[in-house]
Protein backbone atom coordinates (compact mmCIF):
# COMPACT_ATOMS: atom_id res chain seq x y z
CA UNK A 1 0.00 0.00 0.00
CA UNK A 2 2.75 2.35 1.02
CA UNK A 3 4.73 1.52 -2.12
CA UNK A 4 1.81 2.50 -4.32
CA UNK A 5 0.92 5.64 -2.44
CA UNK A 6 4.32 7.27 -2.44
CA UNK A 7 4.83 7.54 -6.22
CA UNK A 8 1.24 8.72 -6.65
CA UNK A 9 1.83 11.38 -4.03
CA UNK A 10 5.05 12.39 -5.76
CA UNK A 11 3.49 12.71 -9.19
CA UNK A 12 0.68 14.79 -7.70
CA UNK A 13 3.24 17.09 -6.18
CA UNK A 14 5.17 17.30 -9.42
CA UNK A 15 2.00 18.06 -11.34
CA UNK A 16 1.27 20.80 -8.84
CA UNK A 17 4.59 22.38 -9.51
CA UNK A 18 5.88 23.91 -12.70
CA UNK A 19 7.95 26.86 -13.62
CA UNK A 20 6.42 29.65 -15.60
CA UNK A 21 8.47 31.72 -17.99
CA UNK A 22 11.52 33.39 -16.54
CA UNK A 23 11.65 37.08 -16.11
CA UNK A 24 14.64 39.34 -16.41
CA UNK A 25 16.77 36.25 -16.92
CA UNK A 26 19.98 36.90 -18.81
CA UNK A 27 21.38 34.26 -21.15
CA UNK A 28 22.99 31.39 -19.29
CA UNK A 29 20.89 31.83 -16.18
CA UNK A 30 20.00 28.90 -13.97
CA UNK A 31 17.41 26.68 -15.55
CA UNK A 32 14.47 25.65 -13.41
CA UNK A 33 13.00 22.29 -14.24
CA UNK A 34 10.07 20.36 -12.94
CA UNK A 35 11.68 17.15 -11.80
CA UNK A 36 13.97 18.75 -9.26
CA UNK A 37 11.15 20.62 -7.59
CA UNK A 38 9.52 17.80 -5.68
CA UNK A 39 8.85 18.41 -2.02
CA UNK A 40 12.30 17.08 -1.15
CA UNK A 41 14.14 13.81 -0.87
CA UNK A 42 11.69 12.10 1.46
CA UNK A 43 8.78 12.33 -0.91
CA UNK A 44 10.51 10.35 -3.63
CA UNK A 45 11.72 7.45 -1.53
CA UNK A 46 9.81 4.26 -0.75
CA UNK A 47 11.07 2.25 2.25
CA UNK A 48 11.86 -1.42 1.70
CA UNK A 49 12.51 -3.83 4.58
CA UNK A 50 15.11 -6.49 3.78
CA UNK A 51 14.20 -10.07 4.73
CA UNK A 52 16.29 -11.82 7.41
CA UNK A 53 17.76 -15.28 6.85
CA UNK A 54 16.61 -18.14 9.10
CA UNK A 55 19.08 -20.16 11.20
CA UNK A 56 19.13 -23.68 12.66
CA UNK A 57 21.69 -26.45 13.20
CA UNK A 58 22.40 -30.17 13.53
CA UNK A 59 23.04 -31.75 16.96
CA UNK A 60 26.73 -32.66 16.46
CA UNK A 61 27.43 -29.17 15.15
CA UNK A 62 26.03 -27.40 18.18
CA UNK A 63 27.03 -29.82 20.99
CA UNK A 64 29.54 -27.80 23.02
CA UNK A 65 31.47 -31.02 23.83
CA UNK A 66 32.03 -31.64 20.11
CA UNK A 67 34.91 -29.80 18.43
CA UNK A 68 32.55 -29.22 15.48
CA UNK A 69 30.65 -26.70 17.60
CA UNK A 70 33.73 -24.50 17.40
CA UNK A 71 33.60 -22.52 14.20
CA UNK A 72 36.15 -19.71 14.34
CA UNK A 73 39.71 -19.60 13.03
CA UNK A 74 41.58 -16.56 14.35
CA UNK A 75 44.34 -14.80 12.42
CA UNK A 76 47.33 -12.66 13.39
CA UNK A 77 47.57 -9.01 12.36
CA UNK A 78 48.07 -8.63 8.61
CA UNK A 79 48.19 -12.43 8.32
CA UNK A 80 46.22 -14.87 6.18
CA UNK A 81 47.92 -18.08 7.34
CA UNK A 82 46.13 -20.59 9.57
CA UNK A 83 48.02 -20.96 12.84
CA UNK A 84 48.92 -24.44 14.12
CA UNK A 85 46.54 -24.16 17.07
CA UNK A 86 43.58 -24.17 14.64
CA UNK A 87 44.73 -27.21 12.60
CA UNK A 88 42.72 -29.78 14.65
CA UNK A 89 39.60 -27.65 14.24
CA UNK A 90 40.02 -27.31 10.48
CA UNK A 91 40.77 -31.04 10.20
CA UNK A 92 37.61 -31.94 12.14
CA UNK A 93 35.44 -29.79 9.88
CA UNK A 94 37.13 -31.17 6.74
CA UNK A 95 36.39 -34.69 7.97
CA UNK A 96 32.76 -33.77 8.65
CA UNK A 97 32.38 -32.33 5.13
CA UNK A 98 33.96 -35.45 3.58
CA UNK A 99 31.62 -37.72 5.58
CA UNK A 100 28.58 -35.56 4.80
CA UNK A 101 28.95 -34.72 1.11
CA UNK A 102 25.50 -33.12 0.92
CA UNK A 103 26.37 -30.58 3.64
CA UNK A 104 27.40 -27.16 2.45
CA UNK A 105 29.53 -24.63 4.26
CA UNK A 106 29.68 -20.85 4.14
CA UNK A 107 32.95 -19.40 5.42
CA UNK A 108 32.66 -15.76 6.48
CA UNK A 109 35.96 -13.91 6.69
CA UNK A 110 36.31 -10.88 8.94
CA UNK A 111 38.72 -8.00 9.42
CA UNK A 112 39.37 -5.45 12.13
CA UNK A 113 37.87 -2.00 11.73
CA UNK A 114 40.95 0.03 10.84
CA UNK A 115 40.89 1.54 7.36
CA UNK A 116 38.58 1.35 4.38
CA UNK A 117 35.46 -0.84 4.58
CA UNK A 118 35.84 -2.20 1.06
CA UNK A 119 39.56 -2.90 1.48
CA UNK A 120 38.77 -4.65 4.75
CA UNK A 121 36.15 -6.68 2.89
CA UNK A 122 38.93 -7.85 0.58
CA UNK A 123 41.17 -8.69 3.57
CA UNK A 124 38.35 -10.71 5.17
CA UNK A 125 37.98 -12.58 1.89
CA UNK A 126 41.66 -13.60 2.05
CA UNK A 127 41.03 -15.13 5.50
CA UNK A 128 37.90 -16.97 4.32
CA UNK A 129 39.83 -18.23 1.29
CA UNK A 130 42.64 -19.50 3.53
CA UNK A 131 40.15 -21.61 5.51
CA UNK A 132 38.48 -22.84 2.30
CA UNK A 133 41.81 -23.90 0.78
CA UNK A 134 42.80 -25.78 3.94
CA UNK A 135 39.47 -27.64 3.98
CA UNK A 136 39.70 -28.62 0.29
CA UNK A 137 43.32 -29.77 0.70
CA UNK A 138 41.97 -32.06 3.43
CA UNK A 139 39.39 -33.59 1.07
CA UNK A 140 36.30 -31.38 1.18
CA UNK A 141 34.84 -30.61 -2.25
CA UNK A 142 35.05 -27.09 -3.75
CA UNK A 143 31.33 -27.38 -4.53
CA UNK A 144 30.55 -27.82 -0.82
CA UNK A 145 32.18 -24.59 0.28
CA UNK A 146 31.62 -20.92 -0.43
CA UNK A 147 34.04 -18.40 1.06
CA UNK A 148 32.76 -14.84 1.48
CA UNK A 149 33.70 -11.77 3.48
CA UNK A 150 31.87 -9.65 6.03
CA UNK A 151 34.84 -7.27 6.19
CA UNK A 152 34.71 -5.11 9.32
CA UNK A 153 30.89 -5.11 9.36
CA UNK A 154 30.22 -7.84 11.95
CA UNK A 155 32.78 -7.35 14.71
CA UNK A 156 32.66 -9.82 17.60
CA UNK A 157 34.19 -7.17 19.83
CA UNK A 158 33.52 -3.47 19.36
CA UNK A 159 36.17 -1.71 21.42
CA UNK A 160 39.07 0.02 19.67
CA UNK A 161 41.75 -2.04 21.45
CA UNK A 162 44.34 -4.46 20.10
CA UNK A 163 42.77 -7.37 22.06
CA UNK A 164 39.45 -6.55 20.48
CA UNK A 165 40.84 -6.18 16.98
CA UNK A 166 42.41 -9.65 17.33
CA UNK A 167 38.98 -11.21 17.95
CA UNK A 168 37.69 -9.61 14.76
CA UNK A 169 40.39 -11.05 12.49
CA UNK A 170 38.81 -14.43 11.93
CA UNK A 171 37.04 -16.85 9.63
CA UNK A 172 33.70 -18.34 10.76
CA UNK A 173 32.35 -21.61 9.41
CA UNK A 174 28.57 -21.92 8.94
CA UNK A 175 26.72 -25.03 7.76
CA UNK A 176 23.59 -25.52 5.66
CA UNK A 177 20.60 -24.09 7.51
CA UNK A 178 22.72 -21.61 9.44
CA UNK A 179 22.96 -19.07 6.65
Amino acid at each position, binding site marked *: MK*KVLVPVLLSTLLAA*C*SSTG*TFDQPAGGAAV*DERSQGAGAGAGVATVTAPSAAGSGIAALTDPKNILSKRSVMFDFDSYVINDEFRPLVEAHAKFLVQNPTMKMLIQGNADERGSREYNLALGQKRADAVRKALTLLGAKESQIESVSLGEEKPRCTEATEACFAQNRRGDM*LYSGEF
Partner: protein
Amino acid sequence: MRKLLSAYRLLIAVALTVVSAVAHAQLSIEITGAGASRFPVAIPVFENEGSLPRGVTDVVRADLERSGLFSLVDMGLAAFPVTAVPDMASIRGRGADAVLTGSVFQQGDGRYEVRFRLFDTQKQTELGGLSMRMAPAQNRAIGHKIADFVYEKLTGQPGYFSTRIAYVVKSGPTATPRYELQIADADGMNAAAALASREPIISPAWAPDGQRLAYVSFEAKKPVVYVHTLATGQRQVVANFKGSNSAPAWAPDGQRLAVVLTKDGQSQLYVLNADGSGVRRLATSPGIDTEPAWSPDGEWIYFTSDRGGSPQIYRTSSSGGSAQRVSFEGSYNVTPRPSADGTSLAFITRNNGRFQVAIMDLATRQTTILTDSARDESPSFAPNGRMILYATDSGGRGVLAAVSSDGRVKQRLSVQAADVREPSWGPQSR
Protein backbone atom coordinates in the same frame (compact mmCIF):
# COMPACT_ATOMS: atom_id res chain seq x y z
CA MET B 1 6.69 -24.00 17.17
CA ARG B 2 7.60 -23.06 13.64
CA LYS B 3 4.22 -21.37 13.20
CA LEU B 4 4.63 -19.49 16.43
CA LEU B 5 8.06 -18.37 15.36
CA SER B 6 6.85 -17.01 12.05
CA ALA B 7 3.97 -15.22 13.78
CA TYR B 8 6.55 -13.69 16.07
CA ARG B 9 8.62 -12.63 13.07
CA LEU B 10 5.58 -11.08 11.47
CA LEU B 11 4.98 -9.13 14.67
CA ILE B 12 8.56 -7.87 14.59
CA ALA B 13 8.18 -6.92 10.95
CA VAL B 14 5.05 -4.92 11.74
CA ALA B 15 6.75 -3.26 14.69
CA LEU B 16 9.69 -2.35 12.47
CA THR B 17 7.49 -0.75 9.87
CA VAL B 18 5.88 1.44 12.50
CA VAL B 19 9.25 2.42 13.89
CA SER B 20 10.57 3.29 10.44
CA ALA B 21 7.66 5.61 9.88
CA VAL B 22 8.45 7.76 12.90
CA ALA B 23 12.12 7.36 13.77
CA HIS B 24 13.86 9.24 11.00
CA ALA B 25 16.02 11.49 13.07
CA GLN B 26 17.23 14.36 10.92
CA LEU B 27 20.84 14.98 10.16
CA SER B 28 21.85 18.12 11.97
CA ILE B 29 24.60 20.20 10.44
CA GLU B 30 27.14 22.14 12.44
CA ILE B 31 29.60 24.50 10.76
CA THR B 32 33.06 24.06 12.22
CA GLY B 33 35.11 26.19 9.81
CA ALA B 34 34.46 28.85 7.18
CA GLY B 35 36.19 30.29 4.13
CA ALA B 36 38.91 32.89 4.64
CA SER B 37 37.08 35.71 2.87
CA ARG B 38 33.35 35.30 2.68
CA PHE B 39 31.27 37.18 0.14
CA PRO B 40 28.87 39.56 1.96
CA VAL B 41 25.34 39.28 0.61
CA ALA B 42 22.05 40.80 1.80
CA ILE B 43 18.95 38.61 1.63
CA PRO B 44 16.02 40.60 3.04
CA VAL B 45 12.84 38.65 3.74
CA PHE B 46 10.87 38.22 0.53
CA GLU B 47 7.94 40.59 0.31
CA ASN B 48 4.61 38.98 1.29
CA GLU B 49 6.39 35.79 2.41
CA GLY B 50 3.97 35.67 5.36
CA SER B 51 1.32 34.41 2.94
CA LEU B 52 3.25 31.11 2.68
CA PRO B 53 2.79 28.50 5.44
CA ARG B 54 6.57 28.01 5.52
CA GLY B 55 9.04 30.53 4.19
CA VAL B 56 11.62 30.41 1.42
CA THR B 57 14.06 33.14 2.49
CA ASP B 58 15.38 31.24 5.52
CA VAL B 59 16.14 28.22 3.34
CA VAL B 60 18.15 30.39 0.92
CA ARG B 61 20.03 32.07 3.75
CA ALA B 62 20.86 28.80 5.52
CA ASP B 63 22.14 27.18 2.32
CA LEU B 64 24.42 30.07 1.45
CA GLU B 65 25.71 30.52 4.97
CA ARG B 66 26.40 26.80 5.40
CA SER B 67 28.48 26.78 2.21
CA GLY B 68 31.06 28.81 4.12
CA LEU B 69 31.53 31.13 1.13
CA PHE B 70 29.02 33.82 2.09
CA SER B 71 28.28 36.03 5.05
CA LEU B 72 24.80 37.42 5.51
CA VAL B 73 24.33 41.16 5.92
CA ASP B 74 21.32 41.99 8.07
CA MET B 75 18.85 44.35 6.38
CA GLY B 76 16.30 44.39 9.19
CA LEU B 77 12.66 44.04 8.26
CA ALA B 78 12.60 46.59 5.44
CA ALA B 79 10.63 45.47 2.37
CA PHE B 80 12.48 45.10 -0.92
CA PRO B 81 9.77 44.29 -3.47
CA VAL B 82 10.95 42.46 -6.57
CA THR B 83 9.20 44.98 -8.77
CA ALA B 84 11.56 47.79 -7.75
CA VAL B 85 15.28 48.29 -8.23
CA PRO B 86 16.73 48.60 -4.71
CA ASP B 87 18.90 51.49 -3.52
CA MET B 88 22.19 49.73 -4.18
CA ALA B 89 24.42 52.49 -2.82
CA SER B 90 22.79 52.30 0.59
CA ILE B 91 22.91 48.48 0.62
CA ARG B 92 26.58 48.66 -0.30
CA GLY B 93 26.98 51.16 2.50
CA ARG B 94 25.82 48.46 4.92
CA GLY B 95 28.57 46.16 3.66
CA ALA B 96 26.75 43.94 1.18
CA ASP B 97 28.33 43.38 -2.23
CA ALA B 98 25.15 41.77 -3.55
CA VAL B 99 21.45 41.81 -2.67
CA LEU B 100 18.71 39.30 -3.42
CA THR B 101 15.20 40.76 -3.54
CA GLY B 102 12.03 38.75 -3.90
CA SER B 103 8.27 38.76 -3.65
CA VAL B 104 5.66 36.08 -3.12
CA PHE B 105 2.38 36.30 -5.02
CA GLN B 106 -0.61 34.21 -3.99
CA GLN B 107 -2.36 32.58 -6.95
CA GLY B 108 -6.06 31.82 -7.09
CA ASP B 109 -5.52 28.05 -7.16
CA GLY B 110 -3.80 27.67 -3.77
CA ARG B 111 -0.39 27.94 -5.35
CA TYR B 112 2.17 30.67 -5.19
CA GLU B 113 4.52 32.49 -7.50
CA VAL B 114 7.95 33.43 -6.20
CA ARG B 115 9.94 36.03 -8.12
CA PHE B 116 13.44 37.10 -7.26
CA ARG B 117 16.25 39.26 -8.64
CA LEU B 118 19.93 39.41 -7.76
CA PHE B 119 21.91 42.66 -7.91
CA ASP B 120 25.63 43.42 -7.79
CA THR B 121 25.83 46.50 -5.56
CA GLN B 122 29.43 47.25 -6.51
CA LYS B 123 28.82 47.39 -10.27
CA GLN B 124 25.24 48.53 -9.66
CA THR B 125 23.96 45.96 -12.13
CA GLU B 126 21.32 43.26 -12.12
CA LEU B 127 22.75 39.72 -12.30
CA GLY B 128 19.44 38.06 -13.17
CA GLY B 129 16.24 36.72 -11.72
CA LEU B 130 13.62 34.03 -12.05
CA SER B 131 9.95 33.41 -11.51
CA MET B 132 8.83 30.06 -10.14
CA ARG B 133 5.42 28.65 -9.29
CA MET B 134 5.13 26.39 -6.29
CA ALA B 135 2.79 24.47 -4.03
CA PRO B 136 3.09 25.53 -0.36
CA ALA B 137 4.94 22.30 0.57
CA GLN B 138 7.72 23.08 -1.91
CA ASN B 139 9.22 25.94 0.06
CA ARG B 140 12.46 24.07 0.73
CA ALA B 141 12.93 22.86 -2.85
CA ILE B 142 12.30 26.38 -4.18
CA GLY B 143 14.63 27.87 -1.57
CA HIS B 144 17.40 25.46 -2.66
CA LYS B 145 16.83 26.44 -6.32
CA ILE B 146 17.17 30.12 -5.45
CA ALA B 147 20.32 29.44 -3.40
CA ASP B 148 21.75 27.52 -6.37
CA PHE B 149 21.02 30.54 -8.58
CA VAL B 150 22.74 32.98 -6.21
CA TYR B 151 25.71 30.64 -5.67
CA GLU B 152 26.25 30.19 -9.41
CA LYS B 153 25.96 33.91 -10.19
CA LEU B 154 28.38 34.90 -7.44
CA THR B 155 30.95 32.08 -7.59
CA GLY B 156 30.73 31.06 -11.26
CA GLN B 157 30.15 27.43 -10.25
CA PRO B 158 26.88 25.51 -10.04
CA GLY B 159 25.35 25.24 -6.57
CA TYR B 160 24.73 21.90 -4.90
CA PHE B 161 21.80 22.81 -2.65
CA SER B 162 19.20 20.91 -4.70
CA THR B 163 21.18 17.67 -4.59
CA ARG B 164 20.60 14.66 -2.37
CA ILE B 165 22.92 12.55 -0.26
CA ALA B 166 22.76 8.87 0.71
CA TYR B 167 24.26 7.38 3.86
CA VAL B 168 23.83 4.43 6.21
CA VAL B 169 22.56 4.79 9.78
CA LYS B 170 23.25 2.03 12.29
CA SER B 171 21.10 2.15 15.41
CA GLY B 172 19.68 -0.07 18.11
CA PRO B 173 21.33 -2.53 20.52
CA THR B 174 24.75 -4.01 19.61
CA ALA B 175 23.32 -7.54 19.49
CA THR B 176 20.40 -6.63 17.21
CA PRO B 177 21.40 -3.55 15.27
CA ARG B 178 19.24 -1.95 12.65
CA TYR B 179 20.72 -0.59 9.43
CA GLU B 180 19.02 1.97 7.24
CA LEU B 181 20.10 3.29 3.89
CA GLN B 182 18.81 6.84 4.11
CA ILE B 183 18.35 9.51 1.48
CA ALA B 184 18.25 13.17 2.51
CA ASP B 185 18.46 16.58 0.90
CA ALA B 186 21.98 18.02 0.88
CA ASP B 187 21.04 20.10 3.96
CA GLY B 188 20.15 16.93 5.90
CA MET B 189 16.39 17.56 5.79
CA ASN B 190 13.68 15.23 4.47
CA ALA B 191 15.58 12.09 5.47
CA ALA B 192 13.84 8.89 4.42
CA ALA B 193 14.92 5.26 4.55
CA ALA B 194 15.21 3.53 1.18
CA LEU B 195 16.15 0.23 2.82
CA ALA B 196 15.94 -1.09 6.38
CA SER B 197 17.76 -4.27 7.35
CA ARG B 198 19.11 -6.30 10.26
CA GLU B 199 22.30 -6.87 8.29
CA PRO B 200 24.94 -4.31 7.22
CA ILE B 201 24.61 -2.13 4.14
CA ILE B 202 27.74 -0.53 2.65
CA SER B 203 29.06 1.29 -0.43
CA PRO B 204 26.00 3.16 -1.73
CA ALA B 205 26.70 4.67 -5.16
CA TRP B 206 24.35 7.04 -7.01
CA ALA B 207 23.54 6.34 -10.63
CA PRO B 208 24.21 9.40 -12.82
CA ASP B 209 20.42 9.81 -13.22
CA GLY B 210 20.02 10.45 -9.47
CA GLN B 211 17.08 8.04 -9.40
CA ARG B 212 18.88 4.76 -8.62
CA LEU B 213 21.46 3.61 -6.09
CA ALA B 214 23.76 0.62 -6.25
CA TYR B 215 24.93 -0.76 -2.90
CA VAL B 216 26.15 -3.84 -1.07
CA SER B 217 23.73 -5.53 1.33
CA PHE B 218 24.62 -8.44 3.62
CA GLU B 219 21.02 -9.60 4.09
CA ALA B 220 21.90 -12.94 2.40
CA LYS B 221 24.73 -13.46 4.96
CA LYS B 222 27.25 -12.45 2.29
CA PRO B 223 27.91 -9.30 0.28
CA VAL B 224 25.60 -8.99 -2.74
CA VAL B 225 25.33 -5.97 -5.07
CA TYR B 226 21.86 -4.51 -5.67
CA VAL B 227 20.51 -1.69 -7.82
CA HIS B 228 17.60 0.08 -6.13
CA THR B 229 15.16 2.49 -7.78
CA LEU B 230 14.33 5.07 -5.11
CA ALA B 231 10.87 6.22 -6.19
CA THR B 232 9.41 2.70 -6.43
CA GLY B 233 11.56 0.73 -4.01
CA GLN B 234 12.20 -1.80 -6.76
CA ARG B 235 15.45 -3.71 -6.15
CA GLN B 236 17.44 -5.86 -8.51
CA VAL B 237 20.33 -8.17 -7.66
CA VAL B 238 23.05 -7.29 -10.16
CA ALA B 239 25.93 -9.34 -8.76
CA ASN B 240 25.47 -12.43 -6.60
CA PHE B 241 28.23 -14.79 -7.69
CA LYS B 242 29.88 -17.43 -5.56
CA GLY B 243 32.04 -15.57 -3.07
CA SER B 244 31.84 -11.83 -2.31
CA ASN B 245 30.29 -9.15 -4.52
CA SER B 246 31.04 -5.54 -3.63
CA ALA B 247 32.23 -1.99 -4.38
CA PRO B 248 29.76 -0.99 -7.14
CA ALA B 249 30.74 2.06 -9.22
CA TRP B 250 28.57 3.52 -12.00
CA ALA B 251 30.01 4.28 -15.39
CA PRO B 252 29.19 7.88 -16.41
CA ASP B 253 26.76 6.51 -19.03
CA GLY B 254 24.61 4.96 -16.28
CA GLN B 255 24.50 1.71 -18.29
CA ARG B 256 27.36 -0.20 -16.69
CA LEU B 257 28.86 -0.82 -13.27
CA ALA B 258 32.34 -1.73 -12.19
CA VAL B 259 32.21 -4.21 -9.30
CA VAL B 260 34.57 -6.37 -7.27
CA LEU B 261 33.98 -10.13 -7.39
CA THR B 262 35.83 -13.06 -5.85
CA LYS B 263 34.25 -15.75 -8.06
CA ASP B 264 37.56 -16.46 -9.83
CA GLY B 265 39.89 -16.11 -6.83
CA GLN B 266 40.61 -13.05 -4.73
CA SER B 267 39.00 -9.62 -5.01
CA GLN B 268 39.24 -8.49 -8.66
CA LEU B 269 37.64 -5.85 -10.90
CA TYR B 270 34.79 -6.67 -13.31
CA VAL B 271 32.43 -4.61 -15.45
CA LEU B 272 28.80 -5.58 -15.98
CA ASN B 273 25.60 -4.06 -17.35
CA ALA B 274 23.29 -2.32 -14.88
CA ASP B 275 20.86 -5.27 -15.13
CA GLY B 276 23.62 -7.69 -14.11
CA SER B 277 24.25 -9.12 -17.59
CA GLY B 278 27.45 -9.12 -19.64
CA VAL B 279 30.01 -9.70 -16.87
CA ARG B 280 33.60 -9.30 -18.04
CA ARG B 281 36.83 -9.17 -16.13
CA LEU B 282 38.54 -5.79 -16.29
CA ALA B 283 41.94 -6.62 -14.83
CA THR B 284 43.95 -9.52 -13.47
CA SER B 285 46.31 -8.87 -10.62
CA PRO B 286 48.29 -10.98 -8.18
CA GLY B 287 46.79 -9.10 -5.20
CA ILE B 288 43.62 -7.36 -4.08
CA ASP B 289 41.98 -4.93 -6.52
CA THR B 290 38.99 -3.04 -5.10
CA GLU B 291 37.14 0.31 -4.72
CA PRO B 292 36.81 1.12 -8.44
CA ALA B 293 35.69 4.62 -9.49
CA TRP B 294 35.27 5.86 -13.07
CA SER B 295 36.77 9.08 -14.32
CA PRO B 296 33.97 11.43 -15.44
CA ASP B 297 34.98 11.01 -19.10
CA GLY B 298 34.63 7.24 -18.74
CA GLU B 299 38.21 6.65 -19.90
CA TRP B 300 39.78 5.49 -16.65
CA ILE B 301 38.94 3.40 -13.65
CA TYR B 302 40.74 4.37 -10.47
CA PHE B 303 41.03 1.64 -7.84
CA THR B 304 42.86 0.44 -4.73
CA SER B 305 45.35 -2.43 -5.05
CA ASP B 306 47.91 -4.07 -2.81
CA ARG B 307 49.81 -5.58 -5.76
CA GLY B 308 52.89 -3.57 -4.74
CA GLY B 309 52.81 -4.79 -1.11
CA SER B 310 50.75 -2.00 0.48
CA PRO B 311 47.35 -0.61 -0.56
CA GLN B 312 47.87 2.15 -3.13
CA ILE B 313 45.80 3.89 -5.79
CA TYR B 314 46.15 2.80 -9.42
CA ARG B 315 44.25 3.45 -12.59
CA THR B 316 43.57 1.37 -15.66
CA SER B 317 41.83 2.08 -18.95
CA SER B 318 38.12 1.25 -18.68
CA SER B 319 38.59 -0.97 -21.75
CA GLY B 320 41.28 -2.96 -19.92
CA GLY B 321 45.05 -3.00 -20.19
CA SER B 322 47.90 -2.43 -17.80
CA ALA B 323 47.56 -0.40 -14.61
CA GLN B 324 49.47 2.73 -13.67
CA ARG B 325 50.27 3.57 -10.08
CA VAL B 326 48.81 6.95 -9.02
CA SER B 327 49.70 7.33 -5.30
CA PHE B 328 53.28 7.10 -4.07
CA GLU B 329 53.54 8.86 -0.71
CA GLY B 330 52.92 6.74 2.38
CA SER B 331 51.99 3.10 2.90
CA TYR B 332 48.18 3.27 2.86
CA ASN B 333 46.23 5.20 0.21
CA VAL B 334 42.71 3.97 -0.52
CA THR B 335 39.20 4.86 -1.78
CA PRO B 336 40.02 7.05 -4.82
CA ARG B 337 37.11 9.29 -5.89
CA PRO B 338 37.59 11.63 -8.88
CA SER B 339 35.89 15.05 -8.95
CA ALA B 340 33.18 15.65 -11.57
CA ASP B 341 35.54 17.80 -13.67
CA GLY B 342 38.20 15.10 -13.58
CA THR B 343 40.96 17.39 -12.33
CA SER B 344 41.34 16.06 -8.80
CA LEU B 345 41.10 12.90 -6.79
CA ALA B 346 39.85 12.64 -3.20
CA PHE B 347 41.09 9.63 -1.25
CA ILE B 348 41.97 8.39 2.25
CA THR B 349 45.58 8.35 3.35
CA ARG B 350 47.16 6.99 6.50
CA ASN B 351 49.25 9.72 8.05
CA ASN B 352 51.14 8.75 11.24
CA GLY B 353 48.52 6.12 12.02
CA ARG B 354 45.62 8.49 11.33
CA PHE B 355 43.27 7.97 8.40
CA GLN B 356 42.61 11.34 6.77
CA VAL B 357 40.95 12.83 3.68
CA ALA B 358 43.47 13.93 1.05
CA ILE B 359 43.11 15.52 -2.36
CA MET B 360 45.43 15.08 -5.33
CA ASP B 361 45.73 17.44 -8.28
CA LEU B 362 45.79 14.90 -11.10
CA ALA B 363 47.82 17.16 -13.42
CA THR B 364 50.67 17.82 -10.97
CA ARG B 365 50.11 14.82 -8.65
CA GLN B 366 50.45 17.23 -5.74
CA THR B 367 48.69 15.89 -2.64
CA THR B 368 47.18 17.90 0.23
CA ILE B 369 45.73 16.44 3.43
CA LEU B 370 42.47 18.26 4.17
CA THR B 371 41.48 17.00 7.63
CA ASP B 372 43.05 16.59 11.06
CA SER B 373 40.83 13.74 12.23
CA ALA B 374 41.95 10.12 12.67
CA ARG B 375 39.25 7.81 11.32
CA ASP B 376 38.08 9.28 8.03
CA GLU B 377 36.49 7.04 5.40
CA SER B 378 34.45 7.11 2.19
CA PRO B 379 35.11 10.54 0.65
CA SER B 380 32.51 11.76 -1.86
CA PHE B 381 32.64 14.98 -3.91
CA ALA B 382 29.75 17.42 -4.22
CA PRO B 383 28.77 17.59 -7.90
CA ASN B 384 30.52 20.96 -8.27
CA GLY B 385 33.74 19.67 -6.69
CA ARG B 386 33.81 22.35 -3.96
CA MET B 387 32.99 20.11 -0.98
CA ILE B 388 33.93 16.57 0.00
CA LEU B 389 31.55 14.61 2.22
CA TYR B 390 33.11 11.81 4.27
CA ALA B 391 32.55 9.60 7.30
CA THR B 392 34.53 10.09 10.48
CA ASP B 393 34.38 9.46 14.19
CA SER B 394 33.31 11.79 16.97
CA GLY B 395 33.52 10.53 20.55
CA GLY B 396 33.33 6.90 19.41
CA ARG B 397 30.28 7.52 17.24
CA GLY B 398 30.13 7.58 13.45
CA VAL B 399 29.29 11.00 12.02
CA LEU B 400 29.47 12.56 8.59
CA ALA B 401 31.60 15.59 7.90
CA ALA B 402 32.27 17.78 4.91
CA VAL B 403 35.38 19.74 4.02
CA SER B 404 35.91 22.14 1.13
CA SER B 405 38.44 21.10 -1.48
CA ASP B 406 40.73 23.89 -0.20
CA GLY B 407 40.40 22.57 3.36
CA ARG B 408 38.94 25.81 4.78
CA VAL B 409 35.23 25.15 5.15
CA LYS B 410 34.30 22.39 7.58
CA GLN B 411 30.92 20.99 8.60
CA ARG B 412 29.75 18.10 10.73
CA LEU B 413 26.52 16.19 10.10
CA SER B 414 25.25 13.89 12.82
CA VAL B 415 22.17 11.92 13.80
CA GLN B 416 21.46 11.76 17.52
CA ALA B 417 22.15 8.40 19.21
CA ALA B 418 23.09 6.62 16.00
CA ASP B 419 26.12 5.77 13.92
CA VAL B 420 26.19 7.41 10.50
CA ARG B 421 28.57 6.15 7.83
CA GLU B 422 29.07 5.45 4.12
CA PRO B 423 28.02 8.82 2.68
CA SER B 424 27.58 9.32 -1.04
CA TRP B 425 26.79 12.69 -2.60
CA GLY B 426 24.25 12.43 -5.41
CA PRO B 427 24.59 13.98 -8.86
CA GLN B 428 23.46 17.45 -9.90
CA SER B 429 19.71 17.46 -10.41
CA ARG B 430 18.86 17.85 -14.07
